[in-house]
């Protein structure tokens, strides 16, 4: 892992004009059906703003080991197909490969998921949603980069709309190369992830919190209309 660089140090971004806040995100007064008038400030009300916190392992090693074992054996994948790799998730969760056997399930909401599978390239527009989804997941949480394009841009290496290195924007625990990786490779990846978690090395969420400024600077460099709080757990 490359050393974290301070924000601004590698900022090659051109000066870009400030974008006005979208109308639907501006504060407004809403009249409720019973006649009350309440002020809505979407940027505050829609998000739960709080700084991220590092949650170090809190218990004795034997307890943490037990917990890590449970975390590893119960991987709940967030149901967010960010790119084309998502198509191989379906065979994985269906009869042919039946990942449920390995304690892998999918959850439709980020609050309940622990594993975010970035299924391939991320366009800037999706990156924004992926960050939001990631931040809503609970610590500890894991990110798996699926496919070549999460490693070094893949075949979209010269595209103006996709990020090239996922590790700059989210803390990634594991990469599975391929374009796209087969379900068997995904499965092997998840089993490898289990080993990482059991060894107590799946601390991506804490890494994210520790280097929060660095990640944010990188994210803001490509997301030009940043109309959300920096962090919204």
């Amino acid at each position, binding site marked *: 892992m490359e050393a974290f660089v301070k924000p601004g140090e590698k900022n090659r*971004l051109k000066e870009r004009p400030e974008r006005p806040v979208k109308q639907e995100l501006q504060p407004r007064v809403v009249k409720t059906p019973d006649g009350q008038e309440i002020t809505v400030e979407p940027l505050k009300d829609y998000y739960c703003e709080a700084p991220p916190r590092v949650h170090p392992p809190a218990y004795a090693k034997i307890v943490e080991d037990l917990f890590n074992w449970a975390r590893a054996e119960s991987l709940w994948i967030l149901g967010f197909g960010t790119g084309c790799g998502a198509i191989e998730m379906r065979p994985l969760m269906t009869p042919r490969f039946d990942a449920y056997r390995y304690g892998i399930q999918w959850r439709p909401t980020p609050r309940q998921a622990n594993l975010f599978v970035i299924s391939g390239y991320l366009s800037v527009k999706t990156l924004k949603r992926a960050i939001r989804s990631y931040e809503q997941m609970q610590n500890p949480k894991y990110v798996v980069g699926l496919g070549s394009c999460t490693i070094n841009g893949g075949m979209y290496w010269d595209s*103006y709309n996709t990020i090239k*290195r996922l590790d700059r924007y989210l803390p990634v625990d594991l990469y599975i190369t391929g374009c796209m990786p087969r379900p068997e490779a995904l499965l092997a990846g998840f089993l490898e992830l289990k080993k990482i978690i059991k060894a107590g090395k799946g601390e991506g969420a804490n890494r994210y919190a520790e280097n929060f400024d660095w990640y944010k600077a990188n994210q803001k*460099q*490509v997301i030009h209309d940043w109309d959300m709080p920096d962090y919204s757990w």
Partner: protein
Amino acid sequence: MKDLTDRLGTLFSLGDITEKRDDLAFVSVAPDLLRAVITHLRDVEGFTHLVLLTAVDWIEGGQFQLTYLVHNRTRARDIGLRVFIDREEATMAGIHDLWPTAATYQRELKEMFGIDFPGSPRIDEEFILEGWTDIPPYRRDFDTKKYAEETYFHRPGRETFDPATHMKDKLYPGEAS
């Protein structure tokens, strides 16, 4: 196809006609004639299906080519209308009232080429891109590789050698040519 282009030719003054296949022809039309021609094609000639509407950037000639491809379902043939408009003042009248679905195409052209279609629904709304501040990306003068290199991080540590140069350095360094 010949019969059709001939008939069209008698009604409108057309530009170049390219017969591509038995069931596909491309015809150049002046921008102000487009609406009349395409309405005629739709209502009289049975070209009721708007297949696509897209643009080609002929930057060397300072022009955008808009291609309206319409299809006749009963006779199974297509005609593409080419309209050349000025690249600097890229504005064109929309056809979203003829085909509601054209509004989507026009939105895309506005965003990706910067061609304006005044009055088209949600024409100024972001369609595909989000927070885009550079020139419209499908224009030829937008260099996607350069943009990607400037904006995103590439994994460092890669280096390549040209075989001929490498052989020169190894086998006959210092010699001419």
